[in-house]
């Protein structure tokens, strides 16, 4: 019987072998899937087990984890200060999802990032609980709050973005309407889901970060890009170069014409400076037709349009639209037609001009700080592209100063500081209210802040213009940044 007993032993060995292979498969190969399965409540507990890093900006704590003392279940809960003001940037940390910085920098915040490996190991050995690293943002709280209040007080929808033109640091990013991330912070899946679904279905789209997640017709603010392309095309051109500026520009291939705003006249011919100051549509239409689609597209790309970015939040690509013929090109040149741009991208246009033509890569995270206050990583400013030469930037600066001093953007003037800017009023549909835009930078001689204000159509009355509605907000934001 020993022969069959030995075979039975082999069978037993085989059974144990199979069991061992199977648990290896489950606990090593498939472990991550099982761990992260949404039905696994453990990952839900684990989300609240460790002290999540703070999110700070300019010395203020915007988000922190509070110890509730409930060991082994939902120990740490997230609390947000001024939730609605920062929500578009910070996002939220809900039971099953995280958005904004909470999502994008999650690995640092929850302490699982490879950079924190050594710390984690030390914690493990000394049996200290793992803590996440803090994320310090580039936002300037004072400017952020004033931008939010200016928009919110008058019930406007839209976005405000301010950049440091020298580095690309994002100083302000506000989007309205917004939400309070505290409402989704409780470890209650169904409650958080209810709040989220309500926000998601809201027609005013409070979850949408209007500064980066969607594009709008830029209107006349785009004339800065058209001017940049026109000046760069021929180095003999400057702010005083004259172009045709008829009362109505016939659109080639159609029987309609491109009029000026409210049918005003630009006097037949105008210098670039005058054309931008009074925002003469026909002059820029003419420039666009003279240059052709490719030149305009190329210039737009140099400012950063045409590709998505990560700041580290995802920024959708801005685009001047496809080449649809001459009539379309004239409209594209004044920021209409299929020309669709994010407020952040328009702020980058202003910042590029301000920074002598160099566009810096925008970023939100200033630095990552370990739980014991050591800097783990800090963002080094990077140049994205040279949009225009310093000479062209100088001419554009002159033209934009004139807009604020003598033209449509006088509401953005700051006492004792030269401001350069451009207004925009973009038609969205025939008869519908327009989007109001304003882009600016200051001080014009040594720019420290560049800003784009976007007010969505219909939220600021029916004849909202960039000069009347958007420029005052830019004024307050620039003042807050410069006065800090």
């Amino acid at each position, binding site marked *: *019987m*020993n*022969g*069959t*007993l*030995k*075979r*039975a*032993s082999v*069978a*037993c*060995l085989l*059974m*144990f072998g*199979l*069991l*061992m292979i*199977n*648990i*290896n498969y*489950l*606990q*090593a190969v*498939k*472990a*991550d*899937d*099982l*761990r992260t*399965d949404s*039905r*696994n*409540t*453990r*990952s839900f*507990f*684990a989300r609240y087990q460790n002290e999540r890093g703070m999110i700070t900006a300019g010395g203020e704590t915007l988000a922190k984890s509070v110890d509730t003392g409930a060991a*082994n279940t939902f120990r740490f809960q997230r609390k947000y200060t001024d939730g609605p003001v920062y929500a578009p940037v910070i996002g939220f940390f809900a039971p099953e999802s995280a958005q904004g910085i909470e999502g994008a920098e999650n690995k640092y915040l929850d302490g699982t990032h490879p950079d924190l490996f050594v710390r984690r190991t030390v914690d493990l050995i000394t049996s200290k609980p793992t803590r996440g690293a803090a994320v310090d943002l580039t936002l300037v709280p004072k400017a952020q709050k004033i931008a939010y209040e200016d928009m919110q007080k008058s019930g406007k929808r839209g976005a405000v973005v301010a950049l440091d033109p020298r580095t690309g640091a994002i100083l302000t990013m506000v989007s309205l309407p917004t939400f309070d991330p505290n409402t989704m912070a409780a470890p209650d899946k169904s409650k958080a889901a209810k709040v989220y679904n309500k926000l998601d279905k809201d027609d005013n789209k409070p979850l949408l970060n209007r500064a980066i997640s969607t594009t709008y017709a830029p209107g006349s603010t785009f004339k800065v890009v058209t001017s940049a392309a026109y000046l760069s095309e021929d180095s003999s051109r400057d702010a005083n170069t004259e172009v045709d500026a008829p009362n109505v520009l016939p659109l080639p291939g159609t029987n309609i014409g491109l009029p000026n705003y409210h049918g005003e006249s630009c006097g037949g011919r105008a210098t670039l400076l005058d054309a931008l100051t009074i925002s003469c549509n026909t002059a820029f239409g003419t420039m666009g037709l003279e240059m052709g689609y490719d030149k305009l597209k190329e210039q737009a790309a140099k400012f950063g349009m045409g590709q998505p970015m990560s700041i580290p939040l995802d920024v959708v690509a801005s685009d001047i639209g496809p080449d649809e013929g001459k009539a379309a090109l004239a409209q594209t040149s004044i920021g209409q037609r299929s020309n669709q741009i994010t407020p952040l991208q328009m702020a980058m246009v202003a910042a590029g001009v301000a920074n002598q033509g160099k566009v810096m890569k925008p970023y939100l995270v200033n630095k990552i700080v370990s739980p014991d206050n050591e800097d783990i990583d800090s963002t080094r400013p990077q140049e994205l592209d040279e949009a225009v030469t310093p000479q062209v930037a100088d001419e554009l600066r002159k033209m934009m100063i004139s807009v604020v001093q003598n033209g449509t953007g006088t509401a953005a003037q700051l006492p004792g500081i030269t401001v350069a800017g451009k207004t925009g009023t973009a038609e969205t549909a025939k008869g519908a209210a327009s989007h109001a835009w304003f882009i600016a930078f200051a001080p014009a001689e040594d720019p420290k802040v560049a800003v784009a204000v976007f007010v969505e159509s219909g939220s600021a009355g029916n004849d909202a213009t960039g000069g009347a509605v958007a420029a005052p907000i830019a004024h307050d934001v620039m003042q807050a940044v410069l006065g800090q």
Partner: protein
Amino acid sequence: MSAVDVAAVPMTAKRRGAQLVMLAFAVAIVMVAYANVGLGTNGQVPAGMLTYGLGLGGLMLAAYFVMAKFAPWADPLVLPLVTLVNGLGLVMIYRIEQATPKLASASNQLFWTALGVVMFSVTLIVLRDHRALQRMTYTAGFVGLGLLILPLLPLLGKEINGARIWVGVGGFSIQPGEFAKLALVVFFAGYLVAKRDVLALAGRRLLMIDLPRARDLGPVLITWVVSVGVLVMEKDLGTSLLLFGAFIAMLYVATQRTSWVLIGVLLFIGGAFVAGQLFSHVGARFDVWLNPSSQALYDRTFGSSYQLMQGLFGMGSGGILGTGLGQGHPNLIPLSFSDFIFAATGEELGLTGLMALLMVYALIVERGLRTAIAARDPFSKLLAGGLSFILAWQVFIIVGGVTNLIPLTGLVTPFMSQGGSALLANWILIALLVRMSDAARRPPPQAIQDEGLTQVFQR
């Protein structure tokens, strides 16, 4: 020449000292694990650590002395290995008691462990020669069958968690099936020893397979009917699979005919398939096995994969090193104190702990099979082989079930799951193995005088 022959008979060492050291080691591991639970749950070494540790240590010391006196030649490794698994089971139940105090009770389990050790000792003391069991072959068969159908009796039987495998005696519930398992293995061994020649030799050859005669199929068919009967009447898939598998394995060992295995497997697959079609609770297990993570199966109220998936989630969350004792969430796994104790252990001790645990089980089984191979008579060989196999087979069925290697059928994890009947039965099983190991390893009586050219041979 003849003097050399006498010296060539291998002398097995008793290794009692080694056994004592390993026993102490096993108890030490259990005590450290016990302290770990306290440190993991509330940062303190539990107050009862010394009581529990010394209690377990004292019990095992007693078992050691009984072995030293009544089975001195027995395998020294078996008792420490069983102590380790039983102790870890106690620790896990203590840990689960912290999370779900209503369901798990470590002090009860310690009491049953003590009773188990008593049964172990009593078996060793009373049963001086296991071959006495061979004379009780048919008695054992009737007792086994009787115990199996006991829960079906109207007043005695109780249905718990959907399976009617319990008998209420006074305040206790016992699972007679656990003891039936032992009686039936004794019966199989005795019966097969008597009939092995006819089962092995008679028959005809067809398609390279030696088919048995129709009338020799009788016992196979009866066992099959009993297994399927248990499955249907008591809704106990686990025991049914356990008994049938053990019988087929023993039949194969006794007759050396592969055809029995094939016939057995075909019969079982056929039976299981028909049962799957006829009984929804069997069919549900198959659905869940094939597609455990399906949301529809997870959500359904009857026969859902919820329990299985919670166990798998626990194991997945434990990963390679585990969360550490006291730091997982065994309360999330239904039945974590009984059928799913393996999954709960996997969460806290991780892959590393489970591999070690399976290794310990494999070693116990291997020591048992070694005893079978070393045994000197066919009955001992079959009994030791059958008992070892049924232990391995039980671990395979329940661990394979909770890890979704095979469809889940409820069975206790030997020496770990909470429950007195299984613990007592398994301690008796170990006592039988120890008894046979003692007989197998005991050196043959030395010749009083030189017997000249008498041939000495080993079996």
